[in-house]
């Protein structure tokens, strides 16, 4: 799936790391994970457990929890994490409660 991000890097020469998103490799800029996923065109980050609505980063400062992703079995705020080489990242698992 080809993804086009609305976000552009000011310094495309920035250091890269390879992470896994939903089981596939993704080469992203090192640094803030939420920013890395955004620039890689990943959207949404998750679906809400209430209505399965798609969501992505909103506040980028750890307040809103809309950028939750699952890392190592734990749902964490992507905006508070630095992308690391080999990091496996996925959408949080939610139950369909419809």
């Amino acid at each position, binding site marked *: 799936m080809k993804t086009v991000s*609305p*976000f*552009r*890097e*000011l*310094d495309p020469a*920035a250091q890269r790391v390879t992470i896994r998103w939903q089981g596939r490799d993704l080469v992203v*800029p090192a*640094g*803030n994970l939420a*920013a*890395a996923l*955004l*620039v890689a065109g990943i*959207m*949404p*980050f998750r679906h*809400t457990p*209430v*209505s399965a*609505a*798609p*969501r*992505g*980063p*909103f*506040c*980028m*400062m*750890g*307040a*809103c*929890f*809309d950028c*939750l992703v699952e890392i190592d079995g*734990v749902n964490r705020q992507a905006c*508070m994490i*630095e992308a690391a080489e080999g990091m496996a990242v996925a959408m949080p698992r939610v139950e369909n409660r419809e």
Partner: protein
Amino acid sequence: MTAADLVIIGAGPAGMAAARTAADAGLSVLLLDEQPRPGGQIYRDVERVAPVRGALLGEDYTAGLPLARGLDGDRITRVPGATVWSIENGTRVAWTAEGRVRQAAGRRLLLATGALERPMPLPGWTLHGVMTAGAGQILLKQSGIVSGNAVLVGAGPLLYLVAAQMARAGSPPRALVETQTPRDLSAAFRHGSGALRGWRLMLKGIGLLAELRRAGVPRHRAARSIAIEGTGRAEAVCFQSGGRRHRVTCDTVYLHHGVVPNTQASRAIGVEHRWNAGQHAFEPVTDADGRTSLRTVFAAGDGAGIGGAKAAELAGRVAALAIARDLGAIDDTALAAATRPLRHALARERAPRAFIDAAYPPFAEALLPADDTIICRCEEVTAGAIRGFARLGCLGPNQAKAFGRVGMGPCQGRSCGLTVSAILARENGRTPEETGYFRIRPPLKPVTLGELAALTAADENEIDRRR
């Protein structure tokens, strides 16, 4: 358990300045901050970023460099990446860093928790692609990424600054949708001497606006009936302005109508708060030194009432000196001598606040949103549901929480708390103070059960038998 004379939560301007001042006075300081590197939101990652993008971000950003550099030294222990989630008995804190829980006890605690963007619940604000203007600026500052197809919505100096920075980065926003009206500005000029100081800030703003004009950014004033449209993701901003309906397509929307104190920690400790009518927000009650209603707990910076980065830095220093006096590190004479110039400077910094607050008031439609607008992003509760709870006799946010889960999600009401209080106050004909706010309990931020369980040495069978 670590021990320190002073535990500071937050390494923004107030926390960084307080840490340096307290250490210089001879106190041992433990500085806990959630970010990997110091700076807070205003000076986010300043040491790393200033050399790369300092010119683009401007002097208001690089001003944080000396503060961040000032944290080096013997008496300051910095714990980056520390998510503080429990504060007991005023000064005992627990935090998670790198997946492990740690605890510390301080003789004094300084809350330098900064500001949050004021929630701006509009139709469509939960679509992905919608963010706060602060978020857009953080992405630009820290990560050097900019959206090429964004619309900015709201009011306030930050909106202009972000737009100008985006223009400098080569991606000016598609449009500025401004909720401020000419009447707001004329009302602001009634704020006497503050208006004069405010006017200088306005000149800075005029400079930014000139930049935006040169970049060809369309500005829509006094916008009303604002909604973000899209299926799943943001696709357009619709609004009324200049006597007609507009629809500006985009894939990123940045919202902003001011910032409010982040009171999660001060609420959890249980210190007194008051309603600041000029800023439409609650803030902890503090004295001139920043001391809260709890003797051992201080608050400084935007978390104690919005005043901006310069004021935060000064208030952090004043609080640190008062704490040093408390703990006997300096005497009254030294305290008075050291704080006098700081208090003067603080008064100067704060003078234009009332003017700015009046010139850029929060957007009325977002303070009391329409019935079908989601206000609690976590539990997806609408404004209309809250009004329904009021009809069931609900007088305050805690009963609303029980009736409809509003504020029960992981964000602990950060995104909806002020809106819930505002709606209930309006519906019940009571003041925000009478209506009150969510009771905040630990964890201030989520902690895994495994991390929490690791704190106990108790044998579970023992618990089994006690039941």
